[in-house]
Each structure stands twice: as structure tokens, then as C-alpha cells.
């Protein structure tokens, strides 16, 4: 591979990095506040993505960004609903039990989503997009290409994630999240309203994922499996980076798209690279996880009896 090709492959990964970091951030927020992994995360994002296209079809003179905000609001509320209606009431249940509850939610959403959005034949309709153009720009003396939508997605993801990290660090909510993540009962005793903190984390996770879903769906056929890969890779990103802190999983979500795009490069992996791209990425990530079972940035967790 030549240098410009390597650069171009990295640039090709940027849109995916943007989408995956958003989904991953949601998964970590939920994991840190509720100690479970949300298997419905991808579906909550998909519902939001459907809602964006649905709104733009229903009210044709509404600007797309308003529809996007509405879609994000739908996922925001859905995330909050899952926490308030189910997870909050299941606090005494083991993490695996909560995980199974989210699997149940996933099963319901998988089946209900196509039915809700069937009436306006949303099924397999391409998702809405701001632009279909391609941007060319020089980098180190070579010309690089990126889709405008991809760049926008990456840029927005970077801004939003920076805002979430700033909020975690500087706001009262962020302090509450960190306190809840450290120890829920102690946080409660110190006067943190852990219910509100947790519910808002679930809602925010939903909203972030919907933004990622919007950029995933833009221009491609919408269906319920839209976010399947993003969710599985999001989980793996969390394990790869280490669940212990907020930035570590984001690192994982940056590494995985890079592996994915290099694995799909025909000059590097042969003419059938596209076919085996997913497989190679999964194998590479699983091997990395086996080598670093506590995550790349994770600390060794010592179990106390």
C-alpha cells in the first residue's frame, strides 16, 4: 500500500468512526450508571432514524435538521422509557438479568418497528440525507476524497462527544454520573438523585445513538438491521477499550473502524476483501480482546470476596 492509499483509507474510516463513537458513548453511559449492557441500543437508534425519514415524508416543508432533532427526541424518550419503566424496577436483579431484559426489549422493537412504520412504506426506503456530494481536498501533497455527509457526521460526532465529555467533567449532572458509576448506594446517600441521573443517561444514550443512526441510514435502505453491526462493534469497542472509564471505549470505537476499512482494502487483502471484511474485523478484535481481557486502557480488576 502506498502512502496516499493509507491516508485515504484512514479518511474513509472517519464517517464510521463518527457513527460508532456515538453509539459506543451511549453504551458506556448506560453501562457506567446501570451496570448492564443495553442490547436494545441499536434498535432504539433505528427507531429514531426511521422517525427522521417518517417526519420528513409527513411534513415535506419541514427542514431536515428539524426532523433530525425530532428523531433524536424520539430515541431520547424511548431510552428514558426503557429505564423508567423496566430497568429502574429491576434494580435488584443481576447484571445478566438486566441484560436479558434489554434483549427482550430488543425482540419487541425488532418486531414492532416495521409494523409502526409500515403504513408509509418506510421499509427499504433510503434514509434522508443532507447532501450526496463528495469533497476533495489536498493532504500532504495528495488529493483525498470524502463524502460531505460523512465529514458532517464525523464533525458533528466530534462536537457532540466533546460536549458530552465537557458535561461529564464540569456539570452537576456529570458529577452525578461519575458518582453513580463509582458507587450507586454511596452516591444516593450523599444526596445524588441517582434515578434522575440514570434516566437521563439512558435518554442521552438513545439520543446519541439516533444521531449515529441517522448518519448510518443516510442514503441507504432503511431496515431494522440498520444498526446491527454498529451495536455489536460498539459492545466490542467497549470491551476492547476497557469498560472502566469513559474515554477508553471511545478509543476502541476509533480502532475498530480503522481495522474494518483496512480489512476491506482490496490492495491489501486481495480482491475478495469486501466479502471477508466483517469476518476479519471480528477475528482481529476478538484476538485483541483475548490478549487484553481488561481492555487496552483498563486496569486489572481485583475481585474481592
Amino acid at each position, binding site marked *: 500500500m502506498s502512502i496516499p492509499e493509507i491516508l485515504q483509507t484512514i479518511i474513509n474510516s472517519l464517517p464510521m468512526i463518527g457513527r460508532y463513537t456515538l453509539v459506543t458513548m451511549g453504551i458506556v453511559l448506560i453501562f457506567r450508571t446501570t451496570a448492564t449492557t443495553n442490547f436494545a441500543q441499536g434498535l432504539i437508534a433505528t427507531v429514531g432514524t426511521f422517525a427522521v425519514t417518517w417526519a420528513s415524508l409527513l411534513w415535506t416543508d419541514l427542514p431536515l435538521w428539524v426532523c433530525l432533532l425530532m428523531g433524536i427526541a424520539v430515541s431520547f424518550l424511548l431510552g428514558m422509557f426503557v429505564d423508567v419503566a423496566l430497568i429502574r424496577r429491576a434494580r435488584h436483579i443481576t447484571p*445478566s438479568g438486566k441484560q436479558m431484559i434489554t434483549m*427482550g426489549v430488543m*425482540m419487541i422493537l425488532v418486531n414492532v418497528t416495521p409494523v409502526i412504520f409500515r403504513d408509509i412504506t418506510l421499509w427499504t426506503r433510503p434514509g434522508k440525507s443532507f447532501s450526496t456530494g463528495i469533497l476533495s481536498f489536498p493532504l500532504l501533497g495528495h488529493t483525498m476524497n470524502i463524502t460531505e455527509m460523512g465529514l458532517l457526521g464525523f464533525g458533528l460526532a466530534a462536537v457532540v462527544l466533546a460536549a458530552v465529555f465537557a458535561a461529564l467533567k464540569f456539570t452537576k449532572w456529570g458529577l452525578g454520573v461519575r458518582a453513580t458509576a463509582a458507587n450507586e448506594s454511596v452516591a444516593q446517600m450523599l444526596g445524588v438523585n441517582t434515578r434522575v441521573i440514570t434516566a437521563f443517561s439512558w435518554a442521552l444514550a438513545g439520543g446519541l445513538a439516533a444521531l449515529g443512526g441517522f448518519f448510518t441510514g443516510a442514503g441507504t435502505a432503511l431496515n431494522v438491521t440498520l444498526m446491527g453491526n454498529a451495536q455489536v462493534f460498539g459492545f*466490542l469497542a467497549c470491551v476492547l477499550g476497557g469498560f472502566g472509564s469513559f474515554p477508553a471505549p471511545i478509543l476502541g470505537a476509533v480502532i475498530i473502524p480503522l481495522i474494518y476499512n483496512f480489512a476491506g482494502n482490496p490492495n491489501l487483502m486481495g480482491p475478495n476483501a469486501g466479502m471477508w471484511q466483517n469476518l476479519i474485523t471480528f477475528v482481529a478484535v476478538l484476538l485483541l480482546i483475548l490478549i487484553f481481557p481488561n481492555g487496552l486502557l483498563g486496569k486489572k480488576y481485583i*475481585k474481592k470476596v
Partner: protein
Amino acid sequence: MLIGVLLIGLQLTAILTDGAWPKSSMLNGFASVMIYAIVGYGFTFLLGYAGLASLGTAGFVGLGAYITAYALKNMPGVPYVVVLLAALLVSLALGAIVGFISLRIEGIFLAIVTLGLSEIFYQLFNNWLDFTNGPNGASISKYPIFQTLLGMSRQDAQKAFYILLVIITVGLMMLTYNLGKSSTGRAMLAMKNSSSAAQAMGISLLKYRLLAFLLSTAYAGLGGVMFMSYLRFSAPQNYTIMFSLNILAAVLIGGSRNLIGTFMGSFIVFGITPIFLQDIPFFRENPWVINVTIGLIIILVVMFYPGGLTQLVNNVKASFKKADRRLS
């Protein structure tokens, strides 16, 4: 045992009434329930006894099915038993690998890693065209043993295979029950409740985790062989995460350690649609209703009835006894 007698009874009635009742679609429904129940029994070792959550089931079942399809199609000289043993051996090897992984990665992380593993299998089934025939799916034309070796007609072979399936299901049920009651089962239970305490009592985590995975993947591989042999068709779409979730649901609904419960759970998850609801137009047109109900049942069982159907039955029994005592 009782279930076995009932299931064979169904087939016999079908033979006696010349297929008037129960219809063959109903019998096929029961056959798939049995196949899924076999997989479910393997899963009870993981979830019910060892307390390990795995989402890799679909991959293991698929592997068993595809090995069978490949061997029966491309190596006609190889006896069925050898194919079966080969599928089991591959499953066992795989179980050993996952077992070792489970020693390094624990709890809910294990579910994520096995989910990744299952995705790898899905990609393999979809793309390894020479072995699996890709998205078009693999099929075999004849029922093994009965049709190929004994030369029975297709209908007779199907009936005979159904009875073989009942025998295997009941046999595995007894094996699982006895293993669960043995020191192995108790060691796994101890490990589930507290791995540290179990280790302190001299239970080897390595041995029993590995054993749980070996048993589970062997059952899953066998389930895959049966799937291919009886239904004679499998496509990669059969082995998505939904399959693993359905098996998990079946085991959970049944009450995670109770074998009749697991069978009933498989019946609820996999059997109700083909056996009863196929004939009701509303459910035929809206297949999502039943899946949503299953999702709801999973949530309700986990939240309010961790013992599943078994607990429900026991509670009803207990309340009857109470009422009885009050009367007397």
C-alpha cells in the same frame, strides 16, 4: 419419559388415522420443538448450572447443520454415524476454545464476546460458498439412514426419523437430569453462586467451566445435525442473534434448570406458531404479534418470575395445598 410417550403417541395417531390428525405440519412443528429443546438442554448447563450467559448458540448449531449438509452431499460413502461424530468432535473442539475464553473474560463481557463469535460464524456461513452454499442455503435431498440406507419412502422415513428424534430427546433429557443431580451439576451450581467460594471448596473453575461449554456446544452441534437431517435445509439467516436469543428465552421461560420447563419453553417460543397459530389467519398475517409476546414474556419472567414456568407450577401447587389445609 411422559413427554416421549405423548410425542410418539402423536406420530402413531397420525399413522393410524392416515394423516388426518395430527397434520404433518403439526408433527413437523413438534419435531422442531424437540430439536430446539435439545439445544436448550445444552444451554441449561451454561445458564442454569454454571451461570454463564452465552450468545454463541446459533453459531454452534449452524456449524453442526452445515457439517452434516456438506458431508452428506459431497461424501456419500461416509456413514451417517461418522458424520454425526465428526460434527460432535468439531463442536467439542469449539466448546473447548470458548471454555478457555470464558476463563479470561467473565460475566456480561462473556455475552458480548460470544456474540462476536456468533457473528464470525454468521459471516462464515454467508461467505464460505464452497462449504455452505452461501445465502442460498444448503439442503440435502434424502433423510439420512432411513431413506438412504434402509430404502424407505420419503413419508415413512420422515415418520421414522421423528421417532428417532423423540428417543434422542428423551435420552438427552435423562442424561441432562442425571448430570445435573450428580456432583458435576452441584459443582457447577456452586460455581454459579460464588466462583470464589467454589474455588475455596476445591472446585476447579477450569474443569467445570470447560465442561459446561463442552456439554453445551456438543448438544448444540447435535441439535444442528438433527436440524439438518430432519428439516433438510438451512440458510445463514437461521443462525442470527435472534436464534440465540430465542434459545435463551426458551430456557428462561422454562425456569433455567428444569428440563420439562425447558421443553415447554421451547414449545412456547418455537412450537406455538407452526403447531396452532398457522391455521389462524390473524396470526398468519401478523407474525410479529407472537414474537412481541415472547419478548414481553422474557421481560416479565426475568423481572417477576425468575423461576419461570416451573415456579408458576410450584406456586399454584402450593396455593392448592394451602387451600386444602384451610378446608380440613
